[in-house]
């Protein structure tokens, strides 16, 4: 097909068939088997069957993913890396054909590898961590089901399968957060997460519907008359960019035009729409005149706003619900009520990145609306800042990590707002490694605290309290170093991968030209956030592993989760593996361009280039000037080191600095309280949503009682009165008539009876009168 350099519109090639459904089949089977077989044979295998099945399913999925990646994806040329598997046609509505299918392109491939890789490691950890817990079949079934939903989400070829997966991960998150459902905190947290997600989902659906509406709705004009758009367009194949300009390649393709829910079709149609005269892809001599009058999506407005801005805004809200951005982030800290592996898998690496994935997938849509891009960047920046401030003042270790996740997700959104989806996805990968490592290490830490502190054993919530920790460096040496490097990655120190991804994002933000506001303001906030990130990361590190009461080294292995030394070893191994990934992934995948002589793109960028470089309108500056890159990197390192230093000074010897810290906290108590509650997010929810809803309910009740009930009662009273009147009428009139008639008859009878007065005289007269009358009658009749 020939190599095609960047720039110039091109259409998605026809997909290559690949058995993508296998990737879904294994986790689904694993879930079903874990649930069924795990419950049935629970006692025979001492509850180990379900975890084993789950881990086996994950391994199968990982192997399949690797085989597909190395066997199918890599060998094919960069432009042709799209693999499809159409599963089922669902239904046809008007002009839209809705079907359920899977597609694998570089973006999906990255996500698939992330989910399966991290998922497998975390499953292994969980199998050991949950040893001795009740309800393990349920846990592992949902864990596998979660992976299934996530893979469905990333492999979806259109909005429909994506939404299935979207909802699936939300549901599985609910089930897993609320795994210990008998605890009120867990159940409430699960419900909160689900409902906040739901708000986002609602916005998501409305966004899809409006997009569909903007495309001309379901009824599509078809025909070949001039001015009408055909439902299927024959266009030239991929363009060839030559020094002379765009040249059409000889082979033709058939492109469906009109409302569609397929991502690639939508992207192609928008490219056709944006390029003048279809970018030369449409033959002027073709008998079908291409005049997308009914499909000018970019020109449509709604309520005096550009339609694409509104649609992207709604999609942003949907993504914010999943990825815990402002205003829908308050569920993530509470979701820490679930088991630690759940937090690691779902709330560090996969579910929360679904929003990032969605925005990346639809980056071509966002690219058409500068307002939307600005909104994304601003939301990301603010969220990063708020998350970092909140993480700084938390006392619960897992809540620190939760707010840290919120903050880091903000960075990813910034990247997407800066039209640098590749950088955002890079950060997804590095963050997945180091955050999962941090969470799983936290699990080990909590174990150790429970084992070595008597009061913590009795009260589990104390076990996660940073103030109870300290001095665990001797108890958990391997974990300590893993935690250190993960913190370094988080902070952005140059010897761990976070540095590479974070600085890439900031650089891309600096050179972005599509924002409606100057990136400078955002960069300042993000710089402060970087400082705070380093600060809170190393705060937790020092509080956990340094200072504190003396602990016996050997006790950490006893009791609690983990089932003894071997389990502990397995878990530590996983943590170390993740830490290794946290160190290595950055340099391996995202070697910065300014560190290479030829200013070459990193492996990661190269891999993802076909996805995003075709976005129209293209960015003016594709590459950042090297000076900027050096400056950004230096600044990032400085801020990180600064944060580390301050943390070291404050927390390495926590007991000594405690009075000073307490005074500081008291002086700034208002600020501390604001940060600690996540800037009063729950309070805001209450004011904006709950209180009005309750007021509405009260008003409705009042309405019901005052008006409806009164009306009904009045009606009933009226009916009663009517009944009484009717009764009266019945008694007086009807009965009166009837009675009157009978009375009259009886009176007449009585009067008539007086004829029989017992006197012969009157009888005689009667006879005579009667006879006389008869005679007269006979006379007159006879005559």
């Amino acid at each position, binding site marked *: 097909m020939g190599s095609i350099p960047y720039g110039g519109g091109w259409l998605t090639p026809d997909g290559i068939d690949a058995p993508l459904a296998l990737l879904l089949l294994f986790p689904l089977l694993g879930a079903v088997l874990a649930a069924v077989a795990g419950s049935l044979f629970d006692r025979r295998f001492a509850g180990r069957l379900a975890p084993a099945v789950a881990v086996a399913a994950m391994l199968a999925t990982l192997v399949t993913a690797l085989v597909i990646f190395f066997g199918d994806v890599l060998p094919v040329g960069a432009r042709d890396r799209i693999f499809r598997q159409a599963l089922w046609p669902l239904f046809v509505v008007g002009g839209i054909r809705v079907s359920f299918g899977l597609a694998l392109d570089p973006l999906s491939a990255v996500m698939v590898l992330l989910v399966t890789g991290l998922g497998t490691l975390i499953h292994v950890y969980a199998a050991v961590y949950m040893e001795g817990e009740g309800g393990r079949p349920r846990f592992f079934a949902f864990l596998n089901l979660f992976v299934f939903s996530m893979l469905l989400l990333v492999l979806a070829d259109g909005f429909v399968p994506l939404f299935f997966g979207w909802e699936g991960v939300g549901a599985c998150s609910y089930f897993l957060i609320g795994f210990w459902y008998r605890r009120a905190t867990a159940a409430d947290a699960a419900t909160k997460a689900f409902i906040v997600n739901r708000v986002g989902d609602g916005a998501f659906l409305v966004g899809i519907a409006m997009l569909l509406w903007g495309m001309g709705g379901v009824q599509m004009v078809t025909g070949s008359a001039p001015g009408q758009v055909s439902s299927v367009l024959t266009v030239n194949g991929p363009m060839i960019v030559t020094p002379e300009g765009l040249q059409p390649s000889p082979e033709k393709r058939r492109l469906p035009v009109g409302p569609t829910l397929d991502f690639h079709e939508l992207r192609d149609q928008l490219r056709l729409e944006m390029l003048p005269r279809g970018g030369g892809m449409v033959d002027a001599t073709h008998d079908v005149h291409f005049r997308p009058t009914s499909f000018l999506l970019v020109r449509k407005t709604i309520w005096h706003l550009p339609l694409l801005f509104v649609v992207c805004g709604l999609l942003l809200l949907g993504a914010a619900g999943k990825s815990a951005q402002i205003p829908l982030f308050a569920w993530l800290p509470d979701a820490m009520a679930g088991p630690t592996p759940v937090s690691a898998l779902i709330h560090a690496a996969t579910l929360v990145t679904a929003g990032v994935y969605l925005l990346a997938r639809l980056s071509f849509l966002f690219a058409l609306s500068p307002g939307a891009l600005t909104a994304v960047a601003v939301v990301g920046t603010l969220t990063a800042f708020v998350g970092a401030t909140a993480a700084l003042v938390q006392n619960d270790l897992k809540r620190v990590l939760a707010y840290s996740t919120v903050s880091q997700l903000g960075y990813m959104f910034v990247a997407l707002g800066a039209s640098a989806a590749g950088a955002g996805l890079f950060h997804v990968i590095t963050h997945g490694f180091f955050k999962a490592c941090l969470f799983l290490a936290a699990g080990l830490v909590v174990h150790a605290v429970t084992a070595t502190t008597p009061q913590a054993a009795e009260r589990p919530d104390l076990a996660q309290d940073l103030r109870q920790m300290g001095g665990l460096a001797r108890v958990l040496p391997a974990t300590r170093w893993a935690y250190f490097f993960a913190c370094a990655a988080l902070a952005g120190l140059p010897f761990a991968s976070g540095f590479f991804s974070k600085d890439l994002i900031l650089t891309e933000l600096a050179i972005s030209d599509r924002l409606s506001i100057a990136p400078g303001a955002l960069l300042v906030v993000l710089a402060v956030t970087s400082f705070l990130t380093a600060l809170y990361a190393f705060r937790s590190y020092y509080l956990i592993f340094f200072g504190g009461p003396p602990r016996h080294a050997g006790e950490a292995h006893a009791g609690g989760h983990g089932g003894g030394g071997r389990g502990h070893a397995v878990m530590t191994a996983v943590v170390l593996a993740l830490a290794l990934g946290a160190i290595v992934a950055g340099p391996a995948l995202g070697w910065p361009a300014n560190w290479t002589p030829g200013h070459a793109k990193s492996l990661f960028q190269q891999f993802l280039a076909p996805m995003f470089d075709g976005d129209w309108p293209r960015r003016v500056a594709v590459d950042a000037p090297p000076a900027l890159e050096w400056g950004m990197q230096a600044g990032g390192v400085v801020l990180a080191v600064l944060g580390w230093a301050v943390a070291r000074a404050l927390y390495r010897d926590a007991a000594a600095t405690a009075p000073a810290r307490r005074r500081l906290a008291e002086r700034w108590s208002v600020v501390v309280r604001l940060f600690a509650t996540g800037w009063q997010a729950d309070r805001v929810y209450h004011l904006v949503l709950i209180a009005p809803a309750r007021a509405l309910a009260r008003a409705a009740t009042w309405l019901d009682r005052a008006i409806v009930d009164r009306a009904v009662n009045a009606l009933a009273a009226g009916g009663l009165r009517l009944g009484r009147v009717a009764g009266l009428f019945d008694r007086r009139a009807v009965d009166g008539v009837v009675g009157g008639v009978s009375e009259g008859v009886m009176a007449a009878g009585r009067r*008539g*009876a*007086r*004829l*029989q*007065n*017992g*006197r*012969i*005289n*009157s009888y*005689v*007269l009667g006879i*005579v009168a009667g006879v006389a009358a008869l005679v007269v009658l006979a006379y007159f009749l006879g005559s």
Partner: protein
Amino acid sequence: MTALLAAPALASIGLGHFLVLSAVMFALGLITAATRRSAVAILMGVELILNAAALNFVAFSHYSHGTITGQVFAVFVVVLAAAEATVALAIVLAVFRGFRSVDVTDVGTLKG
């Protein structure tokens, strides 16, 4: 009217005279039966009526040459009047025995 009344008075006695006489006698008997309080008096009235009828019969018989049917019936009337008077007076006596009075206003227990 005066001619009506005067004419028959001066003409020779004809059937009409007898008929008018019997009609008047009938009316008087009727008045008696209709107004008297004593049962015996009522019986007297009935006898007057019967007599008027018999007189009518005989008058017709006289003024129909050759027939004697009227007189036959007059005889019948007389005989039957006798029989009827017998039974009626027996009843009156029985009533008197029971009610101690023959005043018809006293014996009206059969009234409605």
